[in-house]
């Protein structure tokens, strides 16, 4: 008991597989993890490295095929999350588990309601306890506001308060910074440090190495379902962790060798206005020239999606009330998306599963998506219509294998069987088949492995150097900062600031993203 008791969590030789036969996937193979009580422990790894599976096993959402879970020195085997929560483990999921229409207080007491006789809820007691917690941890929230009216950062605060309300001793946070501005991230981190100093244990799953180094006490790296190693954060570096994650040396910050050399205007929008229930564009004007990357920074939901829809489908009254859209020298304000898709333009969608893939169809058909009017892939036969050229599709797939390192090199497999990074490579390969003069790259590296990020960034720089105008939309500030020749910031549907390369820090950008910087046109 002497050594064990200092550990809050211990996973011993956890293995877990899904599926069967040839399609059997090993999510965890002998994963080992030791987390000291009262520490912040980061778990890093690429997509599919098995982080989430390990945490789901720890939280009782899934059961391990073999191996042991120890919590505060006791061996446990949970059947469901309720049992895990009862033992003091709490989890903040990447996609928050909150009931939107209900109030903060209702969400917090959900599942552990105090009731008096006849099952009447004792809301007064709950409210006073919540207020106390808010004050003690300086995390102000209005208990009577509906969740859906709160910004994402505050929703996350509610999730953390939920765990505090249950007096959880172990906090598992899955990618907690994905939707936060730099300022919000800083606030979150100081809260987490405070929780640690009180003796609670924090487990944080992330792929952002910078944050690992800034926040954690110890790091464990997973790769392909196995534990690569654990290390004191003081002794670690971003390069080392990346190497452990990928299994080879990785260049984290891709720099372009060449200066940008902007040419003719490839995309220009003037005074875009959209005013509907939730979506909004306020007089957005913007241009992208040949051979430059223009980054759009902003917290998600501040008009970026609306801007993209206006570019793709300007004719649709749901995407645009007024304004002018020009692409490659054409006024396309009254064009439909099928007309626009016949131009030499590429669109990398913001959510590739929702907008960019047919998960159950073959990789070949996924390549055809969006290229179905392209003469290289479909021959027009009079009286019959477009006939798919299977050989051209096969060649395009082979090009993707070679030029884009798409794996596995197997034809006919469904899109679903590719990893996140390879799905993104397929989307990129496909969009470059348009030989785009203008490319919209939305979250190009979201959910993509560290190794593939480097590769995708190089590809974008190469396209830029060959004269493609690129509009880059990303919520990763580092990505915006390292790729963009110019950066514009969107806040509540308007362009609130513009910076050129090298003239802005992450802090300034963060301030502009939260609306704190007005009219900063440089």
């Amino acid at each position, binding site marked *: 008991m002497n050594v064990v008791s200092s550990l809050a969590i211990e996973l011993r030789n956890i293995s877990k597989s899904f599926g069967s036969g040839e399609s059997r996937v090993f999510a965890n193979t002998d994963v080992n993890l030791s987390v000291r009580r009262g520490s912040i422990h980061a778990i890093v790894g690429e997509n599919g490295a098995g982080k989430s599976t390990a945490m789901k096993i720890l939280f009782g959402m899934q059961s391990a095929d073999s191996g042991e879970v120890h919590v505060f020195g006791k061996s446990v085997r949970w059947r469901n999350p309720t049992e895990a929560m009862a033992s003091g483990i709490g989890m903040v999921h990447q996609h928050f588990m909150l009931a939107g229409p209900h109030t903060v207080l209702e969400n917090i007491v959900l599942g552990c309601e105090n009731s008096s006789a006849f099952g009447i809820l004792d809301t007064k007691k709950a409210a006073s306890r919540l207020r106390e917690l808010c004050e003690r941890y300086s995390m102000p929230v209005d208990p009577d506001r509906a969740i859906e009216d709160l910004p994402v950062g505050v929703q996350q605060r509610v999730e953390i308060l939920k765990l505090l309300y249950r007096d959880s001793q172990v906090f598992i946070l899955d990618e907690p910074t994905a939707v936060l501005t730099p300022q919000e991230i800083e606030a979150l981190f100081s809260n987490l440090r405070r929780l640690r100093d009180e003796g609670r244990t924090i487990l944080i799953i992330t792929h952002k190495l910078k944050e690992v180094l800034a926040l954690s006490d110890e790091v464990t790296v997973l790769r392909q379902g196995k534990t690569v190693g654990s290390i004191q954060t003081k002794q670690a570096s971003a390069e080392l962790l990346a190497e452990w994650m990928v299994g080879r040396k990785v260049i984290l910050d891709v720099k372009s060798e060449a200066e940008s050399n902007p040419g003719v205007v490839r995309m220009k929008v003037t005074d875009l206005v959209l005013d509907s229930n939730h979506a909004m564009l306020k007089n957005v004007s913007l241009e992208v020239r040949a051979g430059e990357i223009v980054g759009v920074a902003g917290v998600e939901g501040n008009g970026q999606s609306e801007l993209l829809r206006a570019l793709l489908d300007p004719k649709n009254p749901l995407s645009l009330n007024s304004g002018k859209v020009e692409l490659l020298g054409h006024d396309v304000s009254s064009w439909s*998306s099928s007309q626009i898709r016949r131009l030499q333009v590429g669109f990398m969608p913001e959510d590739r599963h929702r907008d960019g893939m047919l998960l159950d*169809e073959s990789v070949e058909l996924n390549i055809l998506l969006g290229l*179905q009017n392209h003469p290289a892939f479909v021959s027009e036969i009079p009286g019959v219509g477009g*006939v798919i050229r299977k050989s051209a599709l096969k060649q395009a797939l082979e090009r993707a294998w070679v030029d884009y390192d798409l794996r596995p090199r197997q034809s006919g497999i469904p899109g679903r069987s590719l990893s996140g990074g390879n799905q993104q490579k397929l989307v990129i390969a496909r969009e470059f088949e348009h030989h785009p003069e203008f490319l919209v790259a939305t979250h190009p590296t979201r959910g993509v492995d560290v190794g593939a990020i480097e590769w995708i960034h190089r590809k974008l720089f190469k396209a830029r150097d060959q004269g493609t105008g690129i509009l880059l939309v990303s919520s990763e500030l580092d990505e915006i900062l390292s790729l963009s020749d110019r950066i514009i910031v969107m806040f509540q549907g308007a362009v609130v600031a513009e910076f050129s390369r090298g003239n802005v820090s992450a802090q300034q950008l963060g301030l502009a993203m939260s609306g704190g910087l007005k009219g900063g046109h440089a």
Partner: protein
Amino acid sequence: MKLLRSLLALALGLSLGLAVTAMAGENPWHVLQVLIKGAFGTRYDLGMTLFYMTPLLFTGLAVTVAFRAGLFNIGAEGQLTMAALAAAAVGVLFPNVSAGWAWLFAFSAAAFVGGGWAAIAGWLKARRGSHEVISTIMLNFIAASIASYVTLYVLKNPETQSPETLAVGPGYFLPQIPGLGDSPVSGALVCGLLSAAVLSWVFERTRWGFEMKVVGQNESAARMAGISVGRVQILAMTLSGILAAGVALGEVLGSAHRFKLGFSPDYGFIGIAVALLARGSPLAVIPSAFLFGALHKGTADLDIETEHVTRDLTLVIQALIIATVSAEGLWDIWARRRNIKIKQKGAQAHG
């Protein structure tokens, strides 16, 4: 795997259906014999099976096309009613068109009306957001009413008490397929088989087939790819209606040579079962329609040959097949069981 599932569903549905007859006090083995003998006993029986298969081929394809674009066409019954009525009307109103292309003339009218009838539901779905299941059901009722009115008040055959129109001109008759003991199976069957083959090619090789698939699987990705979702939905529904109109070929031009009120024993609805069993493949619709045709023919003799079950058994078996085919969860349970067994075996081997 798809094939295996369909075959298993079939076997399971049939066995359960026969189990029901056992519960009713019949010997299931005897019932099965009656079914098989009724469907394939003589050349004539086989001919009747093929005759029932023909309309099911068309409605099965109609439902399959709509499925591909993510639409559930419950309205094949109304579409085929309108189409058969149109074919008969053309044949009655222009009786002297000479043989050769007359059938094509009548079919064009049928396709136009049947396709148009389905297009209404497609348009309502694409432009007004009304669910196609609701609108096609409603259109079925309207079609039935129109058919009654036209048959009884406009084109009524005055020489008979039964509700049917006048006969079409002899130039419209489709040739019978010989060698099947004078059964009414006609060239319509050939048209149906060709339609399945052409449709299969359209699905696999053409942009149009691809666009339907994209719309059916992921509307959002379709929009992003520059596919007009509404246009594809309307066209898919229209094509579905045109295929349902093929029923007019066998029923009006190939056999009855007139429109008889209530000629269809719910071909449109059985077509849904045919399509479900075929799981989206036009070529698989052929054996599936053959099977349901055989079931329809085979059960016809149950009334005479057995004491406790009637031809309604065909409905029971159809329902059981639909239930087993669509019970996706059942297959998962089955697959999981198998995995566990494999694992246990592996463990034993290692232990």
